[in-house]
C-alpha cells in the first residue's frame, strides 16, 4: 500500500458518490447530530440550573454527570444494550440494532459533556450577573434564558466537543447498533470492519472522509462563531 493510496481512494469514493459510502456518511451525521442536538437541548438548561441554583440533589447530578464524563463508551453501550434488549426493561421499545439505539448511546455519552462544560461556562457568567439578577428580581426561567443567550459563543465550542465525541464513537454504537450493512453502519464501525478484513486502504480512506467531515463541521462552526462575534460587535 502506497502512502497516498488511502487519500486517492477516499477522493475516488467521494467523487463517485458511492451509494454505500453516502449512506454511511449520512447515517453517521444524522445519528451524531440528533444525539448532540438532544444532549444540548436537555443539557444546557440543566447546566444553567446547576450553576444558578442550590437545590436538593444538585450535587448528586453534578457527581453523576462528572462520573459519566470518563465513562468508557463500551460500558455505556453495554448498559444500554441490557436496558433495550428484548429481556431488558425497555425491550418493548424494539430499538436494539436500530439507529435509534445508536442515537441513544451517543446521547448518553455526550449529555454529561454538555452538562459539565455548560455548567462551567454558566457558573462564571452567573457569578458576574447574580447581583444584577437579584436586584432586578429576574425570574428563574429568565435567568436561564439570559445565561444561555449570553454564552452563545462558548456554547458553540461545547457543541463541537459533543459532536467530536459523538462522531468518533465506536464501541457503544457497535454494541447497540450491530454494524448492520445499509442499516446501522456508520463511519467508525465501517472503519473497524474494513480493518478487521485487512482492507487497510479502504479503512484509511474512510478515516480520511471522517476527518474531512470533522474538519467541515469545525469550519462551519467557526463561521457561525465569527458571525456571532461580528453581530455582538455590531449589535
Amino acid at each position, binding site marked *: 500500500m502506497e502512502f497516498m493510496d488511502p487519500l486517492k481512494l477516499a477522493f475516488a469514493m467521494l467523487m463517485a458518490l458511492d451509494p454505500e459510502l453516502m449512506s454511511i456518511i449520512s447515517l453517521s451525521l444524522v445519528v451524531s447530530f440528533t444525539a448532540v442536538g438532544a444532549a444540548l437541548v436537555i443539557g444546557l438548561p440543566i447546566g444553567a440550573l446547576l450553576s444558578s441554583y442550590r437545590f436538593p440533589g444538585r450535587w448528586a447530578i453534578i457527581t453523576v454527570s462528572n462520573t459519566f464524563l470518563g465513562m468508557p463508551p463500551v460500558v455505556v453501550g453495554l448498559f444500554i444494550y441490557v436496558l433495550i434488549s428484548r429481556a431488558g426493561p425497555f425491550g418493548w421499545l424494539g430499538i436494539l440494532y436500530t439507529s435509534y439505539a445508536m442515537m441513544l448511546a451517543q446521547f448518553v455519552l455526550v449529555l454529561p459533556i454538555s452538562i459539565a462544560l455548560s455548567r462551567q461556562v454558566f457558573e462564571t457568567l452567573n457569578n458576574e*450577573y447574580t*447581583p*444584577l439578577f*437579584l*436586584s432586578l428580581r429576574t425570574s428563574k426561567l429568565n435567568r436561564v434564558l*439570559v445565561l444561555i443567550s*449570553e454564552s452563545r459563543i462558548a456554547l458553540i465550542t461545547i457543541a463541537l466537543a459533543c459532536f467530536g465525541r459523538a462522531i468518533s464513537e465506536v464501541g457503544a454504537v457497535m454494541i447497540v447498533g450491530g454494524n448492520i450493512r445499509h442499516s446501522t453502519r456508520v463511519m467508525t464501525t465501517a472503519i473497524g470492519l474494513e480493518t478487521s478484513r485487512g482492507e487497510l486502504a479502504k479503512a484509511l480512506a474512510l478515516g480520511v472522509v471522517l476527518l474531512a467531515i470533522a474538519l467541515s463541521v469545525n469550519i462551519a462552526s467557526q463561521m457561525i462563531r465569527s458571525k456571532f462575534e461580528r453581530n*455582538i460587535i455590531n*449589535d
Partner: protein
Amino acid sequence: MIDISNILIVQTRDLTVVRNGKTLLDRVNLDIERGSLTMLLGHNGAGKSVLLRTLHGLMTKTDGQINGPPAKRQKIVFQKPILLRRSARKHFHFVCPGCPDKDTEAWFAHAGLQAQMDTHAHQLSGGEQQKLALIGALASQPSLLFLDEPTSHLDYESTTAIEQMIHDAHANGTTIIMTSHNRAQAERLAQQVLFIHEGQLLESRAAADFFHKPTDPIADNFLNHL
C-alpha cells in the same frame, strides 16, 4: 412592624448581619428621609456596601428590621457596572423592560450616549458604562436609588457627568443613598452623612455639621485622612 411615616423612606432597627461568625453590621438604626441624598462614609470594610446590599435585599439580614419601599421601586448601581454582553440599547431594555423606545432615546440623550446606543455594552468606556448603568436604574423611576461608589474608577470628566446625573435624579425627587471615598464629592452631593465603623453606625448627621466637626473621634480621624 415599624410604623414608617410619610417623612421617612427607609428605617432600620437593630439591623444585624453576621457572616461566618463575623459581624458585618451591628444593630444599625437609621432613618432616611424621603427625597434626601445620604452619603455613607467609612473605611474600607466598614460595612458600607453590606449595608447598601442588605437594604436593597441582595444580602439577607441576620436580625433586626428593615422598612422601605417595595423591591421594584428600588434600584442599585454597582461600583463596577454589571452589563450584559449585548448592545447598550438591548442591555437598557433588559434592565428596563417596559421602557418605550422614545423614552429610551431620551435617557440615552440625557447621558450623552446617543451615538453609543448600538455599541456593545462591554466596548463602552468606563464612564460610559457607568452612565448606562445609571440611566438603566433611573429609567424605571425608582423612589430609592442605591449607588455603591459609582465614580471610584472614573476620570474627572466622567465623574462630573455622573455627579450631574445624580444631582438631576435627586432634584426630580429620587431618594439616593450612596457610598464614596471622595471627600470633595461627598461634600458636593450629600445632605445627610452616615458614618460606619466596623459595622456600627457611629454618626448620622446633616452633611454640613458632619464635615464641620464630627462628634465621634473615629469619624474625626477618618475625615482628616479622607
